[in-house]
């Protein structure tokens, strides 16, 4: 068999003719990174030039596979490089997520880019600074120790004749310096022999640099993935089956012949799409195309009760034990009082405002893909598998899309574009329509949480037994995605787990078990209820249950919810600090819940919750009001205390916290994907509403900075405690306990009718 693979150099050269006919918001440095690719065609992490390039105009281009999903991470990473290089922040340019130009540092997920890629860039930039100083020292004929750097100019202290800028030293040329590199992806370690600055010297890291993307975003000059245009490009739209597990029995091409500019109806396996010369024609053709779909062969659960019954009664394929201490079952049976409760969390959408879009140019043995994926390298692998190309013959170029909040359809749409481009032999741009996005995005999976506790005669909790039952991510890395499955690739696994954190492991109980059980959810054909990671995946639901149950226990035992938590935090200083910081800011009024009943139709209450995710601590206090007759809850204020170790970009962290809180309120109060046995019925924003300006709460934020610590993930953890804090506040206000999200007026009214906390009756 002929080796179809090309060297990276050939590839970049070949692709160069057709790419970058659009300009990104910032011009790339004229100096291209890297001199020598590795034998597999990838960029060599052990070369300094793979990480940054200095131009004659003094700008510094940073090459990273980490991508900005709207969170401002480009700005924070630029701050890190500016800090280590001692160049003005404004001179940093970011080239991100191009598999042909960057090293694979793993996908940008879990709000953990600063934690994982931050040290990589600190070290690479520190190594570059060392090399630049060495070059200047050679030129001046003095030792490097005598030189200092300010604003990108290397100079001899006290001698103005001996100074030279980075641009004059090396601008437009390669550094040609090797650095130490070991490990891969997240675990890649760079230039470990070079010491970055001590945190006490930081000037740029820790300051609120203005986001580099916003000026272009507010003026229409920014290039979103939806704005990418190539010469000769055609427009494609997908035609998905209306129901699960349905195949096209016949596709009537006559039904679209009248549409001007129609190029082709593409059908491969179960995949159906249309390609046209204009976007408008493609949309009309997708709407008009008559497809006869087969009757669905399998049925989904017909309603939430069936879904939760399936979760409860189906054998798990993996039990992930997060905590296993003592014997909770025995301790509960011997306890003087015992409690139990079950909580439900529904399917929810990521809900991007701008539907997914990608452009693909597939040639005989080469493909170039532009898309807004979180993981350009994993998309490269998926597209290569679909096209049966060697990975090195596929180049994925990240272009930012609408904010995504977890992995979803920007990973699917490149495959749609690739299938259609291959079919027509031209570049094809595919954008999903709103109903494609709502129906087919991989959704945040539902979870069923069962919690039991035992309390001794002194009122001390002696046992905690927590079980989460949920689906894995069936659209995770390594699982064939939508178009791949439609053209016949089969999943060989169940998918990736949905995490284990948030089951009460924050608290120390003598007997304690926290387990997350995975229930199979891979169907013969892809379903609209396929799943993937949604912001703070799994932790939101698990913490809703554990932090509600803690509150129920506090109430049963007549203790203030804050004091009750502090009792069981043991020696966790950061956990204690974060709770104290939140209640201080929120002016927490001590007392047990529920608050004494008040007259009038509006009940008011406050609730608290605590979360820890990957080392970051967050406490939330919710202040809410409930209309007792309508059951409508309104969140008035959320106070967040947030500790992510060292803070790199304070305003960026606040921006992320605000966004996560608002999304958390929306998910807690409103959001639930509607479905029936055939598929998803939430197909637009009226059948899946999200929080609007009318309901956004005020948000108060306390940032705890721990500069002596390494930075941890910021933002995403702050979503986790929000639903429980709201549920606890509703209980405080009304005595009604919400154990199923979202807390709709009907559920609140039902809980009000049910009377006191069901835990009391258990």
């Amino acid at each position, binding site marked *: 068999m002929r080796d179809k693979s090309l060297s990276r150099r050939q590839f970049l050269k070949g692709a160069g003719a057709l790419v970058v006919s659009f300009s990104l918001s910032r011009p790339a440095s004229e100096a291209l990174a890297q001199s020598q690719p590795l034998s597999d065609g990838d960029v060599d992490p052990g070369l300094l030039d793979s990480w940054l390039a200095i131009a004659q105009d003094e700008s510094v281009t940073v090459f990273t596979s980490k991508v900005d*999903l*709207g*969170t*401002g991470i480009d700005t924070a990473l630029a701050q890190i490089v500016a800090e280590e290089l001692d160049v003005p922040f404004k001179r940093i340019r970011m080239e991100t997520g191009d598999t042909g130009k960057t090293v694979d540092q793993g996908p940008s997920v879990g709000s953990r880019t600063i934690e994982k890629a931050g040290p990589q860039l600190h070290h690479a930039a520190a190594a570059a600074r060392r090399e630049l100083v060495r070059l200047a020292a050679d030129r001046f004929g003095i030792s490097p120790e005598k030189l200092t750097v300010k604003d990108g100019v290397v100079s001899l202290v006290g001698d103005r004749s001996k100074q030279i800028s980075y641009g004059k030293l090396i601008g437009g040329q390669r550094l040609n310096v090797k650095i130490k590199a070991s490990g891969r992806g997240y675990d890649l370690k760079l230039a470990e022999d070079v010491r970055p600055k001590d945190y006490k010297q930081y000037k740029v890291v820790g300051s609120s640099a*203005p*986001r580099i*993307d*916003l*000026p*272009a*975003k*507010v*003026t*229409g*000059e*920014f*290039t*979103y993935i*939806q*704005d990418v*245009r190539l010469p000769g490009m055609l427009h494609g739209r997908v035609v998905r089956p209306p129901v699960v597990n349905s195949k096209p029995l016949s596709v009537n091409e006559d039904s679209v012949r009248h549409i*001007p500019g129609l190029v082709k109806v593409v059908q491969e396996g179960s995949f159906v799409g249309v390609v046209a010369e*204009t*976007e*408008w024609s493609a*949309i009309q053709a997708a709407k008009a195309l008559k497809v006869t779909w087969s009757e669905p062969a399998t049925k989904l659960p017909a309603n939430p009760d069936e879904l939760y019954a399936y979760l409860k009664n189906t054998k798990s394929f993996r039990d992930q034990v997060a905590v296993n201490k003592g014997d909770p079952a025995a301790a509960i049976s011997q306890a003087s009082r015992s409690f139990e409760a079950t909580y439900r969390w529904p399917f929810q959408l990521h*809900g*991007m*405002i*701008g*539907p997914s879009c990608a452009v693909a140019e597939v040639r005989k043995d080469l493909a170039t893909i532009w898309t807004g994926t979180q993981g350009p390298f994993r998309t490269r692998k998926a597209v290569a598998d679909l096209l049966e190309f060697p990975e090195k013959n596929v180049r994925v170029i990240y272009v*930012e*899309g*609408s*904010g995504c*909040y977890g992995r979803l359809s920007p990973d699917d749409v490149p495959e749609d574009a690739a299938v259609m481009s291959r079919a027509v032999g031209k570049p094809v741009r595919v*954008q999903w*329509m*709103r109903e494609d996005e709502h129906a087919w995005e991989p959704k945040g999976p539902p979870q069923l949480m069962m919690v039991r506790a035992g309390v001794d005669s002194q009122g001390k909790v002696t046992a905690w037994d927590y079980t989460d039952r949920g689906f894995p991510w069936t659209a995770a890395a390594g699982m064939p995605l939508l178009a791949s499955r439609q053209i016949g690739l089969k999943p060989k696994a169940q998918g990736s787990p949905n995490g284990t954190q948030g089951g009460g492991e924050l608290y120390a109980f003598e007997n304690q078990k926290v387990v997350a059980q995975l229930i199979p959810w891979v169907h013969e054909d892809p379903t609209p209820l396929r799943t993937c990671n949604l912001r703070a995946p799994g932790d939101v639901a698990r913490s809703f249950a554990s932090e509600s149950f803690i509150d129920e226990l506090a109430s049963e035992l007549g203790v203030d919810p804050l004091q009750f938590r502090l009792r069981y935090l043991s020696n966790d200083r950061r956990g204690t600090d974060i709770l104290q910081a939140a209640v201080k800011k929120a002016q927490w009024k001590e007392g047990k819940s529920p608050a004494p009943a008040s007259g009038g139709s509006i009940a008011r209450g406050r609730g608290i919750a605590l979360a820890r995710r990957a080392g970051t601590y967050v406490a939330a206090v919710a202040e809410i009001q409930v209309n007792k007759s309508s059951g409508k809850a309104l969140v008035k204020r959320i106070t967040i205390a947030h500790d992510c170790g060292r803070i790199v970009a304070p*305003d960026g962290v606040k*921006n*992320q916290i*605000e*966004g*996560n*809180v*608002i*999304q958390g309120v929306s998910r807690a109060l409103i959001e639930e994907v509607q479905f029936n046995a055939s598929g998803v019925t939430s197909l*637009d*924003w*009226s059948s899946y509403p*999200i929080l*609007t*300006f*009318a309901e*956004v709460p*005020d*948000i108060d934020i306390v940032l705890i900075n721990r500069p002596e610590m390494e930075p941890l993930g910021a933002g995403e953890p702050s979503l986790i405690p929000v639903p429980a804090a709201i549920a606890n506040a509703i209980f405080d206000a009304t005595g009604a306990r919400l154990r199923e999200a979202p807390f709709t007026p009907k559920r609140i009214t039902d809980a009000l009718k049910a009377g006191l906390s069901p835990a009391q009756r258990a």
Partner: protein
Amino acid sequence: MARISLKVNGKSQVVDTDPSTMLLYVLRDDLNLRGPRFGCDLSQCGACTVIMDGKTIRSCSTPVSVARNREITTLEGLGSVARPHPIQKAFIDEQAGQCGYCLNGMIMAAKVLLDKNPNPTDADIKKALVANLCRCGSHLRIVRAIKRAAKKKA
């Protein structure tokens, strides 16, 4: 197909298109504008908002024939990175945005609001933007940005 004259951002232009084409696609695909964005095609989210004769309209659901000879303003018509409009400047100053996909609609709605009501309260602003969806949760910053722009103007 028909030749339709449009006045967009003060410039008269003629496009040759199917008159039932929604204005959004003409602005984006024929006139190469990027401000108005595709979000839902259902007038539900506001990402595609443009100003027509002083009022916000949803360009995803407005046939181009309706816009014939009307005064259309898009995000690009307000200002640029080099010379931002005071509202755009206020959004930058307040760092009001994350992914920014919704910001076109927010800024266009703010423009029409401030033209009518130069000194709006928070409640006025929230009311004016209630049909504009944001998923990143930049709402509070957006309200602050619009208040800042109003103060600058007043």
